[in-house]
């Protein structure tokens, strides 16, 4: 069993596992397994979309990818109450990357890159940057920054703190869940190596998928909250204008 597990029972993060280093450049397990995940995603997408068909007969992989993309689109549409197209590349890639890296834990010896705080912190930082980008795109710099002083100027530090703390929560939640899965498997392997690790591993697969879903949904909720309120205000303003027009007319 030990030969299969790259990480010992004492290692809490795959960052400490260094495969190769030259001066200050270090290639650790997190980087290598992130590369493998990226490679698999790219390869899979390329193979599946190489020969796209639009007839009645679809290839299996195209069918599968269509189901995945369609589901993501409908979920995003439900949350954003609008066209999912601008959000799909960002939120969809987050989901696919986390889901694949968690799913591959069924392969013995796989170290999920999401079980390292560096990866999850990087993903959470992407969301931290992505929210203002989408917000500014949809409502302009001034309007977006105005969000921070709503409902009043006193709330400015609270709003900024909230933004930072939810990023921290996003990173630590994913890290804690995946790390606990691998850790419990490692501990159980040392205590009862026959059946129980398999059960916990299956549970870990479920948690991994749920966490990927939650990460993507939360990212989408944050983006939607930066984008959407604008629409509500616009609607309200429009309705008011209409009402005024009615009064005048």
């Amino acid at each position: 069993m030990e030969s299969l597990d790259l990480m010992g029972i004492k290692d809490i993060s795959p960052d400490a596992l260094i495969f190769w280093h030259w001066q200050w450049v270090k290639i650790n397990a997190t980087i290598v397994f992130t590369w493998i995940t990226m490679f698999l995603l790219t390869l899979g997408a390329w193979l599946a979309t190489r020969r796209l068909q639009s007839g009645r007969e679809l290839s299996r992989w195209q069918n599968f990818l269509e189901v995945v993309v369609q589901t993501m689109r409908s979920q995003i549409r439900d949350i954003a109450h609008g066209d999912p197209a601008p959000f799909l590349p960002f939120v969809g890639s987050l989901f696919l990357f986390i889901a694949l890296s968690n799913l591959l834990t069924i392969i013995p010896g796989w170290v999920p890159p999401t079980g390292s705080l560096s990866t999850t912190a990087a993903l959470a930082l992407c969301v931290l940057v992505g929210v203002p980008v989408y917000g500014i795109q949809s409502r302009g710099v001034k309007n977006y920054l105005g969000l921070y002083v709503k409902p009043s100027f006193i709330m400015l530090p609270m709003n900024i703190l909230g933004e930072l703390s939810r990023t921290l929560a996003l990173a630590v939640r994913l890290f804690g869940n995946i790390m606990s899965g691998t850790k419990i498997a490692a501990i159980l392997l040392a205590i009862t190596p026959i059946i129980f690790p398999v059960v916990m591993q299956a549970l870990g697969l479920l948690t991994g998928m749920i966490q990927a879903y939650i990460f993507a949904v939360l990212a989408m909720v944050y983006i939607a909250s930066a984008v959407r309120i604008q629409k509500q205000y616009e609607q309200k303003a429009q309705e008011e204008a209409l009402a005024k027009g009615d009064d005048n007319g």
Partner: protein
Amino acid sequence: MDNLGLIGMISVATAGITIGIGSIGPALGEGRAVAQALAAMAQQPDEANTITRTLFVGLAMVESTAIYCFVVSMILLFANPFWDYVVQKAGS
């Protein structure tokens, strides 16, 4: 008792207390959330999709406090900075 033994003892005890107490609150909260969601779904089966999604997101939020406790206790057990410091000092 020497420093190393003291640090080890306190770390293990604190890790146990952390995860023990830290999981009570989220467990109660999650139980309540699931019960409410089931009641809501029984009343409005058509809204089951929305309720389930909101439930999952809410559970993840509630759960995160327990996860913080878990991370802290894991750090105390497996990556304890104080332990490492004392060991390093004793080694040099």
